[in-house]
Structure formats: C-alpha cells, structure tokens
C-alpha cells in the first residue's frame, strides 16, 4: 500500500465513507484515498436536523469512520481538501492546492448542495443546513422565545421546524406550493404532518410566495405575497438541493440531473464511478426510469455497491428507494416511488398511524407510504419494500385489512 495509485474516492460523506469501508471488507488491498472538503471525520447527516438541534449537549455527529477505523483499515483521509479537476487520460485527481493524486479507479460521491435563495441579502441570520458546521450555527439560534422562520416545507425544513418548536422556539414555515411535502409524499400524509406541526404550535403558511427579504446581523424580515410580514431571529432556507457535478462537467463526464451513471454506477468515463446524491441512475424496477435520490439509505447502499463494482463485481443497483423523516414523536417512511401508483389502498394501524399502498395499473405494488407515532409503521413499510422488490401483485383486500404482509411474501423453497 504505497504511493497514491489505487482507488480514490472524492467526497467523504456517508456514501464515500461507506464505500471505503466496504472496499476493505471486500478484501481490497491497494491504497484507498478518501478526499473530503470538510475538516471533520466522515459523519452521518440525518441527525443534523434532529438530535443535533434538539440537544445542546448532543455529540456533534455520528462518526462513520473514526481515526482508529481509518488507521486500522489503512484508509487515507485527506480532509479539508477539494478536488478541482480530473485528468481522465492521465488518471489523476488534481486538488485545489495543485497537488495531483493518481488513481486506478475513481469514485465520485460529491453529494449535493443546498439550493440558494436568489437575491437574498448576505446575513449571518440566513442559514442553510447541510454540514455539521451549518447545524451548530443554526443551533445557537434555536432557543425558547426565539423566532425561527423556515422557508420550504420539505423534509429538511419540517425537521428543523419540529426540532426548533420542541425546544420552545416560535416557528413559522413558509411554503410556496399549496401544501407541504409536495414532491413525492401523498396528500393524506402531508395533511397529517401539517396537522402535527399545527398541533405543536407551528404556523404553517402554504401557497405564499416570498416577495422580499430584509436582513441585518440581528433579525430577518420576510415579506409574503399574502401581505404578511414575518419578522424572525433566523431564517433557515430548505428549498431543495442540487447535485455537485462541477468536477464531472469539467472532466467531460455525462451529466443528466446529476452525474449520469448506468445500472452498475459507471460514469461515461473509463474507470470512474459515481454514487449517492450526486448521481442519477436508471432503476430497473421502474422501467429504467432515471432517478436521483437524496436519501441516507441510497447513499449507504450505493456506496456499498460501488465498492463491490470497483473491485470487479459488476452488480446492478436495484434497491427500492426508501426515505424516512422524524418529526416530534412521529415517523414518516416511504418505500418505492409514490408517483408510479395509479390506485391507493389505505391500511389504518391505530393511534392515527396509517399506510398507503400504491399500486400501478397492473395492481403491482410500486410504493408504500406511511406515518405514525414511534415506529408503528416500520414493519409494514419494510415488508412492503420487500414486496415491491419482488414485484408482487398483492390481493387488495389483504392490503386493506390487517393481514400480515409477511404472508404475501414469496419465500425461497
């Protein structure tokens, strides 16, 4: 394990770190270099909008790869360094300090970056949430009697809203669409989440556009299209994310809503793979529809699959898309793609928990979405995920009733 040649992974988030770990678990013995632009060890991002905001004393983040793990596995972690270019012919990654690192194979796990609010004034009171540093900056503004304005009723915005409200802050969520969670979440679930927030004292304003923002270093004023003006101590902007494709574009690698990879996570350039939030891939369960998923599980699973393929496995990625969100004491989970469904069958589980099964025009299960307190929906969503993967056409009456979904699952003989 000497020199730079081996596998380079650009991006030290969940996906890149998991790929590095998996390479060693798969027995890869050459050099592994993990390049990350943050100065921190690789950590998990889901707690950033939840536990990290909820608890002043919370550890900064869950570390995926500790110093000891890096040393034991001889994984070289180049932190606080960004890759500025790829020389695909010379098979080198050029760092921003001009240093060149050679690779046999390269994995891009560059992730996504929050979409910026156009024309917003520069202010330390207008924040985005992607990194641990972002979360710690936001946490200092979340206290009882502070007013947190949230722009965007997606997962990040709503999780921040729940965390801030749980700590006694006054919270206003501003969403330009007519409802929250418009993208990929069925209306009944969005209604449940809206009611949950309102029950907890959050002001949820939908169907309103932002006309202007004024900010100084102490407060933010947001003028809305309904004539209202929200005055807040801090504005957190959660209006989506964009894949980080600059490096791929510079290298002439095909990009299509993210770095375009095939089902084996190979890019258009030889010996270069991409995985996680930064890439779009064709999904065999949905007729080869090209997807880009910003989800923890996808990052993890694609990191593991990319590691296998970097060492010659040639496997296809076909995991069922899966998302979850925790807000207050409730969990929302979605397996599959809701918008592939034509018919919805509802199952109520008590305590307000329910699951929607989404069937296509052949009545094949293509998605299941649910919400409820605790982990009440977890088993059924997990079983649904397995049914979706096996392309099962379930009896509708069995979905609506409380029949054990396990009984619908084809088992190996």
């Amino acid at each position: 394990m000497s020199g730079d040649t081996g596998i380079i992974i650009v991006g030290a988030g969940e996906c890149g770190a998991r790929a590095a770990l998996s390479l060693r678990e798969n027995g890869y013995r050459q050099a592994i270099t993990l390049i990350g632009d943050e100065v921190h060890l690789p950590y998990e991002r889901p707690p950033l909008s939840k536990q990290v905001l909820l608890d002043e004393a919370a550890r900064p983040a869950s570390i995926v790869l500790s110093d000891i793990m890096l040393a034991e596995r001889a994984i070289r972690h180049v932190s606080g360094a960004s890759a500025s270019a790829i020389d695909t012919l010379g098979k080198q990654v050029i760092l921003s300090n001009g240093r060149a690192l050679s690779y046999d194979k390269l994995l891009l796990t560059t992730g996504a970056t929050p979409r910026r609010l156009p024309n917003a004034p520069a202010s330390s009171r207008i924040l985005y949430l992607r990194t641990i540093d972002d979360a710690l900056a936001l946490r200092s503004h979340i206290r009882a009697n502070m007013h947190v304005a949230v722009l965007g009723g997606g997962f990040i915005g709503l999780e921040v809203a729940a965390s801030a409200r749980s700590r006694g802050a006054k919270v206003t969520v501003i969403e330009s669409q007519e409802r929250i969670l418009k993208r990929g979440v069925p209306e009944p679930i969005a209604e449940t989440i809206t009611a949950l927030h309102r029950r907890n004292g959050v002001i949820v304003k939908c169907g309103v556009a932002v006309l202007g923002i004024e900010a100084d270093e102490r407060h933010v004023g947001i003028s809305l299209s309904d004539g209202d003006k929200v005055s807040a101590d801090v504005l957190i902007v959660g209006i989506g994310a964009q894949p980080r494709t600059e490096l791929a574009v510079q290298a002439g690698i095909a990009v299509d809503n993210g770095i375009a990879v095939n089902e084996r996570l190979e890019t258009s350039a030889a010996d270069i793979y991409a995985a996680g939030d930064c890439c779009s891939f064709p999904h065999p369960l949905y007729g080869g529809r090209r997807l880009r998923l910003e989800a923890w599980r996808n990052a993890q699973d694609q990191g593991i699959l990319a590691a296998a393929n970097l060492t010659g496995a040639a496997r296809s990625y076909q995991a069922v898309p899966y998302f979850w969100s925790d807000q207050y004491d409730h969990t929302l989970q979605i397996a599959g793609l809701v918008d592939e469904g034509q018919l919805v069958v509802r199952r109520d589980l008590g305590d307000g928990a329910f699951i929607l099964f989404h069937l296509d025009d052949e009545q094949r299960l293509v998605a299941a979405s649910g919400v409820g307190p605790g982990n009440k929906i977890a088993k059924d969503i997990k079983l649904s995920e397995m049914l979706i993967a096996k392309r099962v056409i379930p009896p509708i009456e069995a979905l609506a009733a409380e029949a054990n979904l396990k009984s619908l699952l084809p088992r190996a003989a």
Partner: protein
Amino acid sequence: MTNWVDACAADEIDQEDVVRFDHAGRTFAIYRSPDDEYFATDGLCTHEKIHLADGLVMDDIVECPKHNGRFSYKTGEARGAPVCINLKTYQVKVEGDRVMIGIGA
C-alpha cells in the same frame, strides 16, 4: 450466577417475531424463531439505540426499524451496514408457559 427473570408469556410472541421486555432500567428484545425456539438480546440497536422490538424478524435475522441494520438474533452478530457492533445475547428458557431470560447476577 444467572439471574432468571420472568419476561413474558410464551404465546405472547408470534412465530418469527419479537417483543420488548423492560427490566431494572434495561430493555431487552425477545424473539421466537420460525421453529419455536426463543432467544433474547439487548433491546436497542447498537447503531442509534432504536428499539429492535419494532423491527422486522425474518428467519434468524432482526432488522432495525429505523436504519435497517441487521443482526442475527441467535448470536447477536451484526450482519450489515450501518451496524458494526454486535448485540449482547442472553440465555432463555421456557418454564411452563413463561419465557425466562438469564440476565446475570
């Protein structure tokens, strides 16, 4: 010395399923295999401390309901990302219709 504690009724757990048992400030998960053997482990996933009793049991594996870490509930062995720390397991015996777990002195 093994301290045997009455955890639950044997028929309280379905085949290929799991229940939660709390005792003396600790939480355990008790499993019934597809062939009616009983097992016990610590009740919280070693990744993010989620209750495994809310998870799915298939064959000899329990899967965490939150982040899908997998363990063999028979041996406690971690069987897949994101978990890498094994679960502690406990002795189990069935006396009459009661499931007893041995949780140490």
